[in-house]
């Protein structure tokens, strides 16, 4: 057997096959872990059915764009809960990358002949795909709960969910490169998810936060998650908020570049420290 003569060009079909394989594997894992799917769905539904219903009479929301009239609190928090699904999913995907690194499956992915940036983007896209499935499943249940958006909004939401999902996924990817063990990563999730979620416009409009605390208002303004929530909110009503979309895109690109750098075999953190169980 001679390895030299055989030509093994990376064809466009090969790229497509590789991409499809990575998404397929993530989908298999996702659907085989029913608990993960259910908890991803139950979490925002608990917020919607219990938290929002309880606060409906306490928190009124005045008319702010994109709403054209007063809305119930459940209606207001729904975009924030969709963003929360994506936030959890982005970090869940990264948790699974840390797990993959620990059990070695990540090594099998990274020794593929396809470029590392392509492999990581494919992995990221697979995570975005599963987050969109969860988001629409949640919106369907919310619809049955009479939290309804214009039908066109469900369509205009799709490209925005891709963008916000990429931002959350890229952030998770970067975090996964920073931590070597699942235990460390789990605690980071607490430090990332909850501050990002609460210090945003997911639960309260920014003007209301500004009335309560200027410091918190400023924190919310610098929180990229706020812009993901607003992008989703506007898209759900058939509008594109260019400021939010620009910021979400910019943050996604920055996180992505940083995470690709971190996973670069010659420059990144993985190269400098070595992956677990590799440093014999």
């Amino acid at each position, binding site marked *: 057997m*001679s390895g030299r003569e055989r030509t093994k060009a990376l064809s466009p079909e090969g790229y497509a*096959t590789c991409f499809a394989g990575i998404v*397929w594997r993530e989908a298999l894992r996702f659907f085989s872990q029913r608990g993960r799917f259910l908890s991803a769905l139950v979490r925002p539904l608990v917020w919607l059915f219990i938290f929002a219903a309880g606060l409906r009479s306490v928190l009124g929301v005045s008319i702010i764009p994109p709403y054209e009239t007063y809305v119930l609190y459940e209606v207001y928090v729904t975009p924030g809960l969709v963003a929360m699904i994506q936030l959890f999913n982005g970090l869940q995907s990264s948790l699974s990358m840390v797990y993959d690194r620990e059990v070695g499956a990540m090594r099998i992915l990274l020794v593929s002949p396809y470029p590392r940036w392509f492999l990581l983007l494919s992995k990221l896209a697979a995570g975005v795909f599963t987050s969109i499935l969860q988001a629409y499943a949640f919106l369907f249940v919310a619809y049955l709960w009479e939290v309804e958006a214009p039908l066109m909004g469900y369509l205009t939401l799709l490209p925005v969910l891709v963008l916000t999902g990429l931002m959350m996924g890229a952030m998770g990817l970067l975090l996964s490169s920073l931590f070597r063990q699942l235990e460390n990563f789990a605690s980071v999730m607490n430090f990332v998810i909850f501050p990002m979620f609460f210090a945003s416009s997911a639960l309260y409009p920014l003007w209301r936060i500004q009335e309560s605390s200027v410091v918190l208002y400023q924190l919310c303004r610098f929180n990229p998650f706020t812009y993901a929530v607003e992008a989703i909110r506007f898209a759900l009503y058939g509008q594109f908020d260019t400021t939010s979309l620009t910021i979400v895109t910019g943050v996604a690109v920055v996180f992505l570049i940083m995470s690709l750098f971190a996973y670069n*075999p010659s420059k990144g953190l993985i190269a400098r420290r070595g992956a677990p169980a590799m440093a*014999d």
Partner: protein
Amino acid sequence: MTQPALRIDGVSHSFGARTALDGVSLTVPAGSFTALLGLNGAGKTTLFSLVTRLYDSTSGTIEVFGFDVRREAPAALSRLGIVFQARTLDLDLTVRQSLLYHAALHGIGRSLGRARAADVLEKFALADRINDKVRNLSGGQMRRLEIARALIHDPALLLLDEPTVGLDVEARQGLIREVRRLAGEEGRGILWATHLLDEIQMSDRLVVLHKGCVLAQGPVQQVLAHSGGSDLQTAFMNLVHSSEMKAAGQEAAE
């Protein structure tokens, strides 16, 4: 002249202040069974990680059939298969799914992937487990599956990092026999990392790695002659002792 399956020249690598490999050079001829012998911590796994480009070496070159793993990574990586020391199987997938996923990572579509999967499973006596979840396989079967998986894209070079760890005597012997057949009958270059002397035969090529340095390499008989040992254990101990003495002398001089 035949291109070697693997040529490593002057490769060094450090993790922070700790030097894991120091100017390592070795060759694995095509179609040969080459044993990489070293104690735990010798640098075998680091070397494998560099060859597979999990991270890049700080100096030196690594070529797979003449393709530089840094500059021509796709060509190099598509020609090698790897079995890592630690298990790298996704336990939630079935045997078939595992193989099809790996085939996809090498750009092989489902129909060809299915045919290749059937072929490699037949070779490794796992055909009857094709629809079973990986978690239901025994330790020996998981290892055989990892080797089958490493072969699904038909690589001409196979790297195995202590693949017999945790296997019973029968499974170990069966595995070694299978891998030797891959070199002898199918002409694949094999680099077999081990710390177990009884896995090495007199007809093999041998590379002795100790504390990140290659102490000797060549056909086993040549290494024995070079080290002045009558058997592998004596030869290995002689080489390690001589290396330790040399290092101690250098330290004292400094």
